[in-house]
């Protein structure tokens, strides 16, 4: 999620190793920028991930939150 609403950073399938590797590199780059990886799980749940899960349908990179 960014200033444009959201941007697709990478797409992959479980069978496509090259696409997944590119996505892993993009994921790592976003972590270095301070983003946090989150996998929405439906029914009001989400999981914080430190590594890109190959089998996730969607991984959202969000900024950290803080007390206002």
């Amino acid at each position: 999620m960014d200033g444009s609403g959201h941007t697709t950073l990478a797409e992959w399938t479980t069978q496509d190793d090259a696409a997944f590797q590119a996505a892993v590199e993009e994921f790592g780059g976003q972590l270095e920028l301070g983003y946090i990886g989150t996998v929405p799980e439906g029914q009001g749940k989400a999981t914080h991930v430190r590594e890109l899960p190959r089998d996730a349908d969607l991984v959202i990179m969000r900024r950290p939150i803080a007390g206002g």
Partner: protein
Amino acid sequence: MPAASSEASLPELASVPWRQRTDERWLRRWGRIWGAWTVAYTVPFIAAGVALIAIQPLAAPVALAAFAHAWIIPELYAYRGASVVRPKGPRNEAGEPTAQGFLGDLLAHDERDLQRQTGLAMQRGALGIWLVGEGGALLVTRRRVHCFCVRTTDPELPPSDRVAHLLLALREDEQGFATVANHAFAGAAWRVRRRLPKRMRPALSAARE
């Protein structure tokens, strides 16, 4: 799901290591403290006003001022609490439609409609029902509404993205979310409702149903 690479606690907790984790007990305690605090700064003004009139009826204008203080100060605290969910910051209208669609994808049908109508995203949790805004959240419990000031660290995001950030963090770790957030106020729902923007009041009503 990727259990090996995931964790249940919110990573932002590392920035507030001194805080006790916000759980039901913590909320009950702070609810009682806020209740006692309200009595402590209201009753003396009322007592002073009554005493003034009893001692000298001509002092009625001063007594009225004391009564006004007893009314205004709790209202100001409630206003402070309700203000956590008031729209604030840049609107970023160019990115907002995309962000609104993205946020809508995170919400169920009824919650999506409610968010579009009121600007607040409803999320049921173990601690109560949350109403998440752009820069804060209300936690509606059985007896009180707790107001939390919490925001994303990128203030330039479109409003709906700011809501989505908070919603995702809340879904990751509810108690962690409440711990990272600053607790601004706790009080009866009617006190908060009166100070909410009219557009947002149906969300509070829906949360209490």
